[in-house]
């Protein structure tokens, strides 16, 4: 995981939702709209949306153990030619970036969400919070003219 800088601009998305899976799609679409507004291309918008989905699902399933009534705050900011998305939870505080790596087996459940974050985002940082829980900061840069972007088939 690489480090993302903290957002400084006013958020274009600022949502507080309960940890109900029914809320994932609405948050994803709001962030996708923000990504479009930030100038990301269609592929980048789709990748940001999927990563928000996967990060929220991980919070619901792992940080909150499936509870559907806990808070999740999602914000998105335009910054440095891209979009910064933050996801704050008040869950168990386990940092996914510190979990021991395991070989990815496509026929075994789990792990795909984190792979998406690593492959699709340009910066991912998990910051344990003093009051409990976790702050996830993800950065997606606008594509540079002539640049190929991150490979979806990159190495683990």
């Amino acid at each position: 995981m690489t480090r993302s800088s903290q957002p400084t601009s006013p958020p274009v998305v600022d949502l507080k939702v309960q940890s109900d899976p029914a809320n994932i799609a609405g948050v994803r679409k709001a962030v996708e709209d923000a990504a479009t507004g930030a100038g990301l291309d269609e592929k980048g918008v789709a990748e940001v949306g999927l990563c928000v989905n996967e990060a929220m699902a991980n919070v619901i399933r792992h940080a909150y153990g499936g509870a559907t009534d806990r808070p999740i705050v999602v914000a998105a900011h335009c910054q440095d030619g891209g979009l910064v998305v933050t996801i704050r939870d008040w869950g168990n505080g386990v940092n996914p970036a510190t979990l021991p790596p395991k070989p990815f087996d496509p026929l075994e459940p789990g792990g795909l969400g984190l792979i998406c974050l690593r492959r699709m985002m340009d910066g991912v940082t998990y910051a344990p919070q003093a009051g409990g829980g976790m702050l996830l900061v993800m950065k997606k840069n606008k594509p540079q003219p002539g640049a190929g972007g991150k490979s979806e088939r990159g190495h683990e």
Partner: protein
Amino acid sequence: MSEVNPGVDLVPSTRVEPASHAVVASVRGEIDLHNSPELRGVLLELLAKHEPKRLVLNLGQVPYMDSSAIAVLVEALQKIRKSGGRIFLTDLQPRVKGLLEIARLDSIFVVAKDEADALARQ
């Protein structure tokens, strides 16, 4: 062919193709953690009820799915493989195709152009 268990919103139509020992199901909508358990229930019921040799999933009306939906497809694949069957995915939309590639499942499922292609495969 015969219509079977015309279904819930997520799987609006299913049919049996006896000549191919196949069940063909059309899936519709965006699938994430909210509704992937519903998809799981439908697919596992189809497999238990018909014990097909091939399950053809037309994903032409699925513009988006996440890893929880992928996990459902993998569970169904594990189930049908126990009886020597296969899962065919047809009419893939770009975002779904991209996720299958990242999950390295594009070569584990049989990806077919459309239902006719899936049913014609040996």
